[in-house]
């Protein structure tokens, strides 16, 4: 089956991003296809490359980076939600004349259309977080 995953909560505030990560791994293990992973609302913090975690704790953005690049997945962060929360890539730092790009390399900044397009191509859209 083809899945699109939508993550809406920040890794540090909610279990949602970690659950989504484990769900994504389980899908791949079972032979399903992930059409796209989309980060919206505070979920965009999952794509902050500058996140640090104590050694005995999981660094979720790093885990997402591995999952996406190791499996050549398509992962997108909503650009409007991201720039409001300080998640930017080189294009955006250049556009706004600021320093310090922090977006995970494996993830792209794009619009909500990418969520809608992926959902229309998928058998299932599964959301993590949201409602609060």
């Amino acid at each position, binding site marked *: 089956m083809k899945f699109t995953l*939508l993550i*809406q909560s920040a890794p540090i505030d909610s279990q949602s991003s970690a659950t989504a990560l484990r769900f994504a791994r389980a899908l791949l293990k079972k032979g399903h296809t992930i059409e796209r992973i989309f980060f*919206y*609302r505070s979920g965009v913090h999952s794509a902050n490359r500058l996140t640090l975690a104590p050694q005995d704790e999981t660094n979720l953005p790093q885990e997402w980076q591995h999952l996406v690049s190791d499996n050549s997945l398509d992962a997108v962060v909503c650009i*409007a*939600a991201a720039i*409001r929360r300080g998640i930017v890539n080189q294009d955006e730092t250049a556009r706004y004349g600021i320093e310090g790009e922090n977006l995970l390399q494996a993830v792209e900044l794009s*619009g*909500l*259309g990418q*969520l*809608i*397009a992926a*959902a*229309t191509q998928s058998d299932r*859209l599964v*959301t993590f977080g*949201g*409602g*609060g």
Partner: protein
Amino acid sequence: MKRFLIISRQSPYGSAAAREATELALACALFDQPVALLLLDDACYQLLPEHQPETIAQKNLSAMQQSLPLYDVDKIFVCQRSLAQRGLTLDSLSLAVTSLDTRQISALIRTYEMVINV
């Protein structure tokens, strides 16, 4: 083509939830997908007229809400019980919406392929 239902549960201000739910509903419409909006709990307050968010340095959500029908998001549903719990009536709201009881809401959700609880 898939039918989208966007569910919002938050008041218009206090977090970006209401704005980001509205933006998602508008985006579905812009990309030519059939879309409806369902307002539960404190999301009822999103439809009250005469917001004055400038006093807390926020942007008015009503302007964006009012554009929903223009973008063919013409199906806006609101939970009857949530309205009643807050002492609100349909005619006190700034947009024409349909109110549903809880049984109708569960039936409604089942008719959509893509349900996003923002």
